[in-house]
């Protein structure tokens, strides 16, 4: 745009030597040109002689006399020529110049100064670049915002199964399905060589029953650092392998990499929003924790060993092993319904409240004293309904 403007100005500047124009001309006989001519004729000078004496080109003098000031090379030169001419004729220079300026008033006195600039290389003007990049940025942000809002809705419904985990599902279907169908199933799984089946080491919990596949117990010899998903304990493999081992604590020695594949695969492999039941092996369980809203729970035994830990989706339930001295730790106390022998126990807190060391004792739960006093006081003294 700038370039175009410059070009136009250049053309204008090139064709018409700009500055001085005569708005009135000298037809009325009162112009500077006619005045000068009359004076010259009166003094009987030839224009040619004047031009020779003043060294001003004849065409310029003619232009002055005829009032065609735009034919002169420039305002400053026009003034000089007229002054010289007036002086030559013995006229009052100041007066003539004043008249000339009045006559040429309105015509621009200034000279357009347009510097010859190198031709711009074929580049977009920076303004356009800025505008386009702004639009792109806004569009990108808008798109991202829209997509992410969609995605968020999707994730609330069903978490996508990571590729790695889905691969594990394919590899070890028996292990990944949480359903603790039969020991035979587990045994076949364990017999499979390719995906090493996670097997707990001799569990420290006294109630735990030894694994029925003792040779496999030594299977994970490599002690790599705990895998990323290690925080999820191994309740899943435990029921899969041992029918009556409800509270298989995580192996003290970190499970091998194969374990890390298998362990998380168990709880997470089943997608969708169908309510799930955990701890189904605890057939004689009296306490059932059902999530009415998404809530994270952790069940520890008296020794502080984690028995169960996961984020329960709405509708998921967990059958608490029938063991004394288990404690519940939850991040959303109001999102849990606790059923004791099918009866609704008093709520342990309001939604969003963190509850620690809730005793999972049937009697205390029913009587509403499961939540420790100190904990209750800290959480705002709200436990009962």
């Amino acid at each position, binding site marked *: 745009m700038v370039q175009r403007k410059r070009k136009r100005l250049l053309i204008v500047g090139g064709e018409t*030597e700009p500055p001085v124009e005569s708005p009135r001309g000298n037809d009325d006989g009162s112009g500077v040109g006619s005045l000068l001519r009359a004076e010259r004729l009166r003094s009987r000078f030839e224009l040619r002689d004047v031009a020779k004496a003043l060294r001003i080109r004849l065409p310029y003098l003619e232009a002055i006399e005829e009032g065609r000031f735009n034919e002169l*090379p420039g305002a400053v030169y026009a003034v000089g020529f007229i002054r010289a001419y007036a002086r030559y004729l013995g006229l009052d220079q100041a007066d003539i110049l004043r008249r000339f300026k009045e006559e040429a008033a309105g015509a621009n006195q200034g000279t357009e100064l347009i510097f010859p600039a190198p031709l711009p290389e074929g580049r977009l003007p920076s303004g356009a670049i800025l505008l386009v990049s702004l639009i792109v940025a806004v569009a990108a942000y808008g798109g991202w915002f829209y997509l992410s809002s969609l995605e968020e809705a999707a994730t609330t419904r069903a978490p996508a199964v990571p590729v790695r985990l889905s691969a594990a599902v394919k590899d070890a279907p028996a292990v990944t399905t949480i359903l603790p169908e039969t020991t035979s199933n587990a045994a076949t799984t364990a017999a499979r060589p390719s995906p090493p089946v996670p097997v707990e080491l001799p569990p420290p919990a006294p109630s735990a029953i030894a694994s029925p596949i003792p040779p496999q117990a030594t299977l994970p010899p490599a002690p790599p650092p705990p895998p990323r998903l290690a925080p999820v304990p191994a309740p899943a493999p435990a029921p899969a392998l041992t029918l009556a081992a409800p509270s298989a604590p995580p192996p003290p020695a970190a499970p091998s990499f194969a374990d890390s594949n298998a362990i998380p695969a168990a709880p997470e492999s089943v997608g969708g929003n169908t309510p799930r039941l955990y701890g189904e092996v605890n057939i004689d369980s009296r306490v059932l924790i059902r999530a009415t809203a998404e809530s994270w729970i952790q069940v520890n035994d008296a020794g502080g060993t984690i028995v169960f830990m996961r984020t329960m989706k709405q509708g998921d339930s967990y059958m608490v092993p029938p063991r004394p001295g288990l404690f519940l730790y939850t991040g959303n106390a109001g999102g849990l319904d606790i059923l004791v022998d099918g009866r609704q126990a008093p709520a342990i807190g309001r939604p969003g409240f963190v509850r620690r060391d809730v005793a999972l004792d049937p009697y205390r739960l029913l009587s509403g004293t499961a939540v420790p006093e100190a904990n209750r006081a800290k959480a705002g003294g709200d436990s009962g309904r």
Partner: protein
Amino acid sequence: MIQRLLGMLSADMAIDLGTANTLVYVKGRGIVLNEPSVVAIAEVKGKKQVLAVGDEAKQMLGRTPGNISAIRPLRDGVIADFEVAEEMIKHFIRKVHNRRSFASPQVIVCVPSGSTAVERRAIQESAESAGARRVFLIEEPMAAAIGAGLPVTEPTGSMIVDIGGGTTEVAVLSLGGIVYSKSVRVGGDKMDEAVIAYIRRAHNLLVGESSAERIKKEIGSACPPEDGEGRLMEIKGRDLMNGVPKELLISERQISESLTEPVSAIVEAVKVALEHTAPELSADIVDKGIVMTGGGALLTNLDHVLHHSTGLPVSVADDPLSCVALGTGRCLEEMKTLRNVLLTAY
């Protein structure tokens, strides 16, 4: 971006730092200051302090007691006394610049085309320490040509003769640049000195610089009048023979005689410039002639002398004294398009 913001806040200025007069052009306001480049310094308890700057100081020139000295910090178009020049620029900037705005101004200063790198550096540093945010320099003939309204950017040669206080700049310009320039250290000051020398020689009378300048302005002429003695003027000074103040009558013819030497130096410079001009540009100059600016252009009949000695039409620009300041100011106003003519150390 920041530059533009600061530009809005500060009053950018163009300074024609001349040997005789300093003109300051403020963006959007035009020429706001035109004062002699004179600083009066008083020595109080061994410490130098600025007493007066500009008009006030000029009146003190040559009339000062021992503890005051009126100094002209510029000689021959360049800074001779660095510290005093800095004080002067500082004073002028402060006088013109709105002190409420916190942004310091952007300043364009003229330098003679013949000045050395050291002299340019000195002027730039003076302006910087006087409180300028950025200093640009512009060569005087270019500023004068822009101020006079010459079509300097067109592909046609224009010749400008800028006769200042300290230097005379002769330049041929085309396509926005200086094709040839010659700077001779002859100007108004040299004419004053010539007048003083002549009067002393011919009449044994010593006159001061200010008086000499007044004489030059009133009855100075580049060529002797055709007949008679021309205008007459009474001059006052000190008689060298017996040391008493004396008054005598001097004529235009005598002064024109005294000015022969500086005038011929100027004519010589123009001739040299013409000699060094490329033939195409010479052809353009023959058509349009020479344009004179600067205070020296006001010397009676100087255009006449130049016209006769070169055979070219000679035009004196309108308001020759402020051409340089106006041209510099125009560069300030049209910084974007006229940026090419500015010299800068940044």
